[in-house]
């Protein structure tokens, strides 16, 4: 029996996108009512989240719509997360000049979220490719949304060029798969790749390269810093969290469904990739002068930590990846939220723009403390447990050296995250007149920050049930 339940979130997003565009002309004339667009998007996303949570929970794992979609907990959990991330990002959009009053921005955000939802549940190569493009194209436009800003234009253009290239590589990989097997459904393909041969190697390499771009794994990470730096800050936040999580959702689904037996041969390569990704990301992040660019490199490093869980290739490993992504996304959304607010107030993303932040706005200072310490992996914030589980999974599967590489890397990370906090708490503004330079935090941004801080603390301390959900999602893979 086919119902619409497996794609209920997507349908709701589609309806929302159309509504936003329909509302737009009615609000065009009235400047004072433009903020309504943002609130409407946020409220609708949350409503969609609630409705889906109540109605569209999968019972087990089943293919739907002729095998296009797999209705399982992995997809569901990620979908709920994308809706949440989109809602938070919409709140942050409302604080960003030139984005906040444009219906197109909210529409593109919703469209990207729609694509991500499909990515997380796609079970067919055709569907998967369409979903990836549905996600990417709105994001290209969003990255280049500030037409008059050279950096943003460059960001959007670069992202599109790199993205198009890797999409082509990915598509080529898919076409080879289809050519050799005559199948496009992931769960039927698995049988055909039970033998290790040259075809499998080539295909896996192509597909891995395509996905590595999406999640910014070394050596396909070059686009990330430029794109993040130039894109409007809330967009960069969304790119580095939700988009990355969607890429990982596809990655773990593909690797468990299609290439399970290859894992012994590929694990070492993936482990080396993870090591390089973490190390390169962290080392380059060390030298950055702009917090936004530093976060871009740190997000590369975080993709490396998440890869550790993939390398472990156990149920615990996959669960830890899912948990890690959600934890990291909460934290990074918060970090980018802060960067957005500070960038708006100071007109710069340099470290020096953060000088005296705790004196200018104590609340924002504390939020920065939470965000950066959580990124560094300190308890009681969620960054600690998420890293802990990833390392635990690695050790369980015998990857002790990888866990050691991971913990050593987290020390490098701690150093540059603390540098931000040093500016926030220790340094003063030039004339030591912080009192006269308060940092205004608008209401939507404040709501977003409070939600994220609360989430980081809540999941960081009461992690049991949340990890239970992640385990449930991972169980759908095996």
């Amino acid at each position, binding site marked *: 029996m086919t119902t619409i339940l497996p794609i209920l979130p997507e349908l709701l997003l589609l309806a929302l996108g159309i509504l936003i565009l329909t509302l737009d002309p009615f609000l065009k004339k009235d400047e004072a009512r433009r903020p309504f667009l943002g609130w409407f998007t946020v409220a609708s996303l949350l409503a969609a989240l609630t409705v889906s949570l109540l109605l569209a929970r999968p019972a087990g794992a089943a293919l739907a719509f002729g095998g296009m979609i797999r209705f399982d907990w992995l997809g569901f959990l990620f979908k709920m997360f994308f809706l949440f991330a989109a809602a938070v990002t919409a709140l942050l959009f409302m604080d960003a000049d030139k984005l906040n009053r444009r219906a197109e921005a909210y529409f593109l955000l919703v469209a990207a979220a729609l694509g991500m939802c499909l990515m997380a549940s796609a079970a067919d190569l055709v569907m998967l490719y369409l979903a990836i493009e549905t996600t990417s194209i709105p994001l290209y436009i969003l990255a280049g949304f500030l037409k008059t800003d050279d950096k943003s234009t460059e960001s959007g253009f670069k992202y599109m060029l790199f993205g198009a290239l890797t999409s082509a590589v990915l598509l080529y990989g898919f076409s080879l798969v289809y050519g050799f097997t005559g199948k496009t459904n992931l769960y039927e393909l698995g049988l055909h790749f039970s033998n290790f041969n040259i075809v499998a190697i080539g295909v896996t390499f192509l597909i891995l390269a395509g996905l590595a771009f999406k999640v910014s794994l070394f050596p396909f990470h070059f686009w990330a810093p430029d794109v993040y730096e130039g894109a409007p800050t809330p967009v960069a936040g969304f790119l580095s969290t939700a988009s990355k999580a969607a890429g990982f959702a596809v990655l773990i689904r593909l690797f468990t469904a299609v290439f399970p037996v290859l894992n012994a041969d590929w694990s070492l390569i993936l482990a080396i990739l993870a090591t390089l990704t973490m190390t390169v990301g962290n080392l380059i992040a060390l030298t950055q002068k702009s917090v936004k660019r530093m976060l871009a490199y740190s997000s590369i490093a975080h993709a490396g930590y998440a890869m550790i869980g993939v390398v472990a290739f156990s149920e615990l490993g996959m669960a830890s990846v899912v948990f890690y992504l959600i934890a990291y996304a909460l934290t990074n959304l918060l970090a980018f939220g802060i960067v957005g607010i500070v960038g708006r107030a100071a007109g710069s993303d340099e470290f020096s723009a953060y000088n005296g932040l*705790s*004196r200018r706005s*104590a609340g924002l200072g504390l939020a920065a403390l939470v965000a950066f310490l959580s990124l560094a992996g300190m*308890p009681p914030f969620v960054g600690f447990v998420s890293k802990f589980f990833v*390392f635990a999974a690695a050790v*369980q599967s015998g990857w*002790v050296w990888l*866990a050691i590489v991971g913990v050593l890397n*987290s020390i490098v990370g701690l150093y540059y995250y603390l540098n931000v906090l040093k500016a926030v708490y*220790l340094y003063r503004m030039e004339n030591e007149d912080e009192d006269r330079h308060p940092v205004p935090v608008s209401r939507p941004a404040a709501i977003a920050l409070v939600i994220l801080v609360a989430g980081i603390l809540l999941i960081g301390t009461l992690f049991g049930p949340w990890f239970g959900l992640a385990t449930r999602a991972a169980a759908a893979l095996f």
Partner: protein
Amino acid sequence: MQFPFLSVIVFTPLAAALVILLYKAEWKKAVRWTALAAGLFALALSVWVYIAYDKGAAGYQFIEKYDWMPMFGISLHFGVDGMSVPLVLLTGIVMVTGVMISWGIEDRPREFFAFLFILASGVFGVFASLDLFMLFFFYEIAVFPMYLLIAIWGWIKTREYAAMKLTLYLFIGSVVSLVGALVMYWTAAQQTGALTFDMLALETVKFAPEFQKIWFLPVFLGFAILGGLFPFHNWSPDGHVAAPTAVSMFHAGVLMKLGAFAALRVGIMLLPEGAKFWAPLIMSLALVNIVYGAFIASVQTDFKYVIGFSSVSHMGLVAMGFATLNADGMTGAGVQMFSHGVMTALFFAAVGMVYDRAHTREIPKLGGMVKPLPLVAIGVIVGSLVSMGMPGFSGFIAEFPIFRGIWDTKLWWMAIVAAISIVITAAYVLRVVLKVFFGDMPAELEGHITPIKPLDKIALVLLMALMIGIGILPALMVPWVETGVKHILSLLGGA
């Protein structure tokens, strides 16, 4: 059901920190009084736990266990034994005296006390934890506020450097131990089939000797970094000196014990065979600590660096005591942790009081402080006597058994070498006392030395009373520690 003493002790500072953070920045008085009230409350409870601890029954007491994540066998498992109960008390004392001494902080006191109390919660949490995951959780909570406390309120010249160095050292240590702990966890799961971070269960797992030999070193040394063990002690004097007074007190008084304690709990108690194998190495490193620390301390001209390096030397005695793996040595080390904690808290408090008034810590530039600051002088003299192990003071009760313990090991000659440090210690502390408190006051300080505040006095008297009290009546502390040692020895195979 029994009143949940330990969890209330652990979470009181944290709750107070959250409450303080909700205050307005201008409510400085409210912040201080809330901090003091919470500190006194936690201290009262820890005194009660100390008194009510049943020495006859021994073992782990005041146990509370709440599921945290049953799937992985992670629980919030509180409990104290004879080894940790004095340390819980010590934390309470240092917390309250630290608040009293920081009363005058004017730069963002709200954040200062909040971070200090988050730190205190972390420390309480480690001492009271019987779960390995929980231990790491609280251990790291104790590390990061340190960075902010030193970097923001520390000594302007070195604070950035020292804070970063300290944080990175400690973080490296803890994550290296963490990997070791994870390996232990999965190995235990393979052997027993049960997933658990419960240290009481892990104690009973007999890890293979080879396994223990490999993993003991990373686990022990990872924690021992925080205990200031040579050659990983480098962060500590810099950190002590850069930190504001209350943080130095916390840092040297409690935090270094955190490292030693965790090294004992996780390293020696869970991997006893590894401990036996590596004990000579640990003793050798500790010996370097003791002698080298004392020598370096004796050539410092900065009052605070003297104390900083003396801490390195004294913490070496703790590590030495543990590494003897016999009853005398361990009991001495247990008492030494408490005694040194109180002593060094007093020293740093005194240094802070002198510095706040003289604005210098250079020993040659100080002098004649006994007249304006008589109580501080008495405090430092008492501390000095403790520090050189004079009978009648707590230092003797701690150090004498440690030396006896060394004597009983194969490396008995180390006792002789280590004993040199006592002479050097006596020389440098007396020199400092003489120069700073007696002699002539330099002309530029004349008239600038204002008397100390009543709260400072209370803090000093409290700390002194403890050192003399235990010195005269060892029965106030030794029996507690002995029950803890007995259990450790049983894990070591009844040696």
